[in-house]
Structure formats: C-alpha cells, structure tokens
C-alpha cells in the first residue's frame, strides 16, 4: 500500500545502456534496408493506419533502434500491411518487410 500518497517517478529518458537491442539485431539482419531511413516521415504521412489511429510507423522504427520495444508490442498490430509506405520511401526502406519481421520477432519472443 502506498501509505504516503507519493510515488517515485520513473525516468523518462531512454536508457540506451540497458535497453534491449535484440529485436533490432534480428530485424536488421532480415531487412538491412532499415538502416537507410532518414526520418523524412513520408511513410507516416500517407499511412492507412496512421490516418485513424495513433499508429506511426516511422516512430516505431525509431523506438526499435533505441531498444524501446514496449511501444512496438502495443502498436504494431494496427498496421494493415497495405504497403503504401514502401511506395513513397525515398531511401528504399522495405517498411512492410520490416513490420513483418518485427511481428515475427514479437511472436517468437513473447514474454
């Protein structure tokens, strides 16, 4: 029981030292084009899922790159795998394959 009514807030900063980069290693192996993203947002601008929900594929990719995997587990299922994001990407990131690879990783590493 929280007798005092106070909590100690958890730090908001990304702890890159302790974060788990295993998903990133897995995905980069399967989809090396992920490395090429320049965060232009083209994929997210036209994303079918992002129009209706808070889904943001560019950000999820960044979360993965920093080892912040919690958000990805919560959000990824919103993608409809329509592939529109691939059509606009100026760096040739195979976003749909990346999403599938992330999904596969999550499925195989349920905690």
């Amino acid at each position, binding site marked *: 029981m929280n007798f005092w009514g106070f909590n100690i807030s958890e730090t908001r900063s990304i702890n890159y030292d302790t974060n788990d980069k295993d998903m990133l290693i897995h995905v980069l192996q399967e989809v090396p084009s992920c490395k090429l993203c320049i965060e232009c947002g*083209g994929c997210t*601008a036209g994303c079918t899922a992002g129009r209706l929900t808070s889904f943001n594929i560019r950000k999820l990719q960044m979360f993965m790159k920093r080892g912040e995997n919690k958000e990805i587990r919560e959000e990824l299922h919103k993608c409809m795998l329509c592939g529109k994001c691939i059509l606009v*990407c100026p760096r040739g990131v195979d976003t749909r394959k990346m999403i599938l690879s992330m999904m596969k990783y999550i499925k195989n590493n349920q905690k």
Partner: protein
Amino acid sequence: MHTVIIIGGGPAGCEAAYQLASDGIQVHLIEKNNETGGNLNNWYQLFPDRKNAQDLNKRLQEQLNHPGITLHLGMEPSRVEKDGQGRFSVSLSDGSLLEGDALLVATGFKTFDAKRKEEYGYGIYENVVTSVDLENMFRNHAIRTSKGDVPRRIGIIHCVGSRDEKVCNFHCSKLCCITGVKQAIELREMLPESEIFCFYMDMRMFGPGYEEMYREAQEKYNIKFIRGRLSEAAENREHQVQVKVEDTLLGRPLRVTLDLMVLLVGMEASNETQGMARELGVKLAPSGFILPLDPHYGNNLTGEKGVFITGCCSAPMNLTDTLNDARSAAVCITRYLNMK
C-alpha cells in the same frame, strides 16, 4: 601561343575563358545558345546578398570582350578528336573546325524534370510550379494563382528530384535549401499577407551567410518551417493543392491546403555533360556528374590528359564555388600548357 577550347558558356566557362585569356592564352568559347550565361539567365536574385542575377551575368559577358577570346554562339561540338601530340580538334555544328592544346568541359547541369515526380502533380495540377518557374514569376513581378488571384498560402517543397531513390537520384543538390529560403523571403516581400511554408527534411545551410538568412527568414519574414517530406498532393475543386506530410517533429500526419505549391527542383548533369563524358571517355560518378580525378588535389582534372572540367558538370555548386572552380581550372590548365 597556346589555345584552349572551352565547351559551355555558363558562368564557369565564361570566368575560365577570361582568366585564361588574361594569362595570354588564346580561348575558343563554344556556347549552344545564342547568349552566354546558361542557367543564370533564368535567375532573378542571387543568395546570400540578393544581388540581381543579371548584374553578375552582364559582368561575365563584358569580360568576354577580351581580345584573346573568340566566342562561338549557337554552336555545339559535333566531334572531338585528340591526336598523338595531345592536340584537340573540335568540329562545330556549322562544319568549322577548332584546334586547341587543352579542352575545358563546362557543360553544367540541368534542373530536374518535375514531371518525373508524378505524385506531386507538376503539369497536372494548375497551381504547382517549380523554383525555376517562380524565378520567372519574380522577374515579371507577378505571383498569381492560375485563376489570377493572390495566393494566400504558399508551400515550398524541398528535395524534389534529389535524395530520392524513386527517381534514381541519391545525391543532395546542395543549393535548393538556400534557394527555398531566398524564394520564401522574396515571396514575403511581394505578398506581405500570405502564409509561407517550407517543407524540409534537413536545412542544409552550407555557405557563408546562409544560416543567417534562414534565421532572418524566421525572425523578420515569418516563414514557417515544417519538418516532413511531401508524401502526396491532390487538387481540390477550387484548384488548390492539398498536401500530406508527416510533421515529424510532432510525430503526426499533417494536411494543409495551399494556393500555390513550389517544387525546389534539384540538379542533374546536363545532357551535354553526359554526352561530352561519353565522347571523351571520362568517368561519371554514380550521381551522373563527371567524376574528378581526386576530390582534393584534382577537382579540375579527369583521367584524360588535357581534358579539364569546371563548374556544375562535376557537382552541384553555388555561384561562388563555380567562379572559384573556374579560376582553379584556369590555373591547372596554364600549368599544364607550360609543361607541354
């Protein structure tokens, strides 16, 4: 006396011609159009000092009155040959033949054909123009929509035809960011009431005074900068342009309706640059521009002896760098000729 043949009468070719002639070298300058100046002829004002582009053009033209320079306007080289002694002969489109001891390629760039980026609607939607079209509108002092109204909201789109695998251009054209800032300021001066946006991925303010100009665009001219690459554009019934980007700094998709959309078209090697490279057997970089022998010690040299390059045939360059590069080419050529 030595003779140098220069192909291309843009700023690089003109400046090199004058520098070489001043060193007592005979110069033949070949220009395909009926006037020199190349792409500079399309420009209104220059960054960062907002100099009238035609003042610089005129100055470069006046320098060509040097007695050592012979101008061949409206001519294209139809054939270039090199003999065993390293002398070049160039046949011109009118059948005449020029001979020289060195060749300077100054065939420059062309702007990206915005129609190739079909989803941006250039040539399809009425109120989509390129940065080159806009310079022309500035020169005529008429910034209007297709219906003749004052555009109340204008969006400037960075990186059109550059940094884009989809159009096979990986390179950054280097000058469009600062061109966008300059054009935003010019638009503001002509249209004090309009809202002006730049949609960018990175603001590449590489030259002296450029970052300051960017700051001034925010502070004094109230230009709004949104970090996100244009994904799609559509036209509504009023012929306005509806654009979709991600506001990447907020992490949310953003839609905005524009009365006028300006595409900052990038730079590609001109057809003449590619043609000369083929004719002379010099190497091209993956960007399609001519590859210099060395990026530090040999930026005016090619793998071919006696063949020199200058200006935007080797990479996108601003005018400051172009003129410097032309002077540097003149030094290289003079040294080469003296050793011959």
